[in-house]
């Protein structure tokens, strides 16, 4: 589903954010990217949805080399990917329903489909009672659920999550992880960056560990060391 071949990403001449990274993620896998702040986790995720392009190496997603893809095709690549962030990136002037519907509206989905899919996904994340609230009327955990609903509403093949529990207290974070596991069980591939030891050790999924841009460990059912 995702394959990186000797990928190197440099920002300025001095900062090498990712150095010669290679790995493959199978369909339906759940993978943790771990490592201290600044080790290149977010950069790796941004390489997978073409927010960044590598200096060297190739990134393959769903069977296509996404760096050879013309700019005009990138929106269609992104429709097969969902993105979840530490800061949720919700639109403050839209309700829960509207925030999720927005993701379908702007890719031209018809109204009747929106009316059908949005309530379904809001029920999946457990927010069916709060569809008309605004983000500031929700707790952090609830806001993250909205953002997961928005990422998942179009049934992407892959969900990219960048420290989704980073702003949440431990028990709320666990709730988010249970939700992500459920989404994973529907067949959606999940790549999640985190430096939360507890969560990694609890779930025992595959762990790819980074240290200053270099992959130093790739382990099935791993823990955070």
């Amino acid at each position: 589903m995702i394959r990186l071949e000797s990928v190197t990403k440099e920002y300025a001449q001095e900062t090498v954010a990712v150095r010669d990274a290679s790995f493959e993620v199978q369909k339906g896998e759940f993978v943790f990217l771990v490592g201290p702040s600044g080790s290149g986790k977010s950069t790796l995720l941004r390489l997978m949805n073409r927010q960044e392009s590598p200096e060297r190496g190739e990134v393959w997603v769903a069977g296509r080399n996404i760096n050879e893809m013309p700019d005009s095709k990138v929106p269609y690549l992104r429709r097969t990917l969902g993105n979840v962030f530490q800061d949720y990136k919700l639109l403050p002037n839209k309700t829960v329903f509207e925030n999720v519907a927005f993701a379908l509206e702007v890719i031209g989905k018809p109204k009747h489909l929106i009316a059908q899919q949005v309530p379904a996904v809001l029920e999946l994340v457990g927010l069916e009672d709060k569809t008309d609230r605004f983000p500031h009327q929700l707790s952090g955990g609830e806001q993250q659920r909205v953002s997961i609903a928005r990422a998942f509403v179009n049934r992407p093949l892959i969900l990219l999550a960048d420290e989704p529990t980073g702003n949440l207290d431990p028990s709320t974070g666990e709730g988010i992880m249970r939700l992500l596991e459920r989404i994973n069980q529907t067949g959606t591939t999940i790549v999640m960056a985190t430096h939360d030891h507890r969560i990694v050790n609890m779930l025992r999924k595959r762990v790819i560990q980074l240290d200053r841009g270099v992959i130093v460990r790739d382990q099935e059912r791993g823990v955070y060391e």
Partner: protein
Amino acid sequence: MILGRISYAFREMWASFKRNITLTAAAILTSAVSLLLVGTTFLIQRAFDNLLVQWRGDVEMIVFVRADATESQVDNIESALKDQPTVIDGEKLKYLNQKQSFDEAKKIFAGDPNTLSLLTEETIPSQFKVVPITKDPELVRSLAEQFQTLPGVESVALAEDQFRVIAKLSSFVRTVTIGMSLVLLAVAVGLIWNTIRTAMFARRREIEVMKLVGATNWFIRVPFMLEGLLQGLIGAVVSCGGLWGLNRAWTNGVASFKPGTGISALVVPSGYVSGVMVILIALGAIAGAVGSGIAASRFLDV
């Protein structure tokens, strides 16, 4: 689905339009003023043109030939003119027959329909337009007196000094107004660009989300481009209103002069004014599309 997209684009455009009302007003006003200046330039040029049409191309002397002159009389006048190679430029000598003279008269008397109604293609004199080769005005003047008495000649007119002044003034005014309107038009494009850039910056979070969920650049861009286009168009409509008012006041002013003084030639026909308005609308739309187009593509590249 197409309808949904169109209504989305217009809804977004309108919301953004209201949000940035001050910047929008400034952009519209500048477009209006610059386009009004463009339109005024056209009208002033046309007015001067009417006034100077008889004397275009360095013509200094006109020999009017009687409507009832015989062909041989006309030929005689022509050869007499060509017989003066030291005073007259024979190459540039031009003859306007009665039909051509009548067409010219329609311009000269555009604002003086009474005089025009007295003229017909049959009664109007035909004319020789004479370009002198000498620099000495006295030579031309004495030649004019000489021709006055030739059989078939109705009258001889000399370009008066005020025409030369007006011709100079006209080209000066043209240079200045064209220069000023170009500068103002560039400012208008810049202001529209800035308004759209600001509108996009205000909505950068929305744009970021749109890009992440896979909206195409065109989908994101179109509402903003429509907004710029609308600003240019509104500016153009306002300038058309202004131009209409200016032209009315001008026409009324000219009409209060005594007919037959030549001032009436300064009236611009209303068909021409409508033509200029179409040009202004087109220019407004282009200015809006260019300004917002640049803003939208720059922003999305980031």
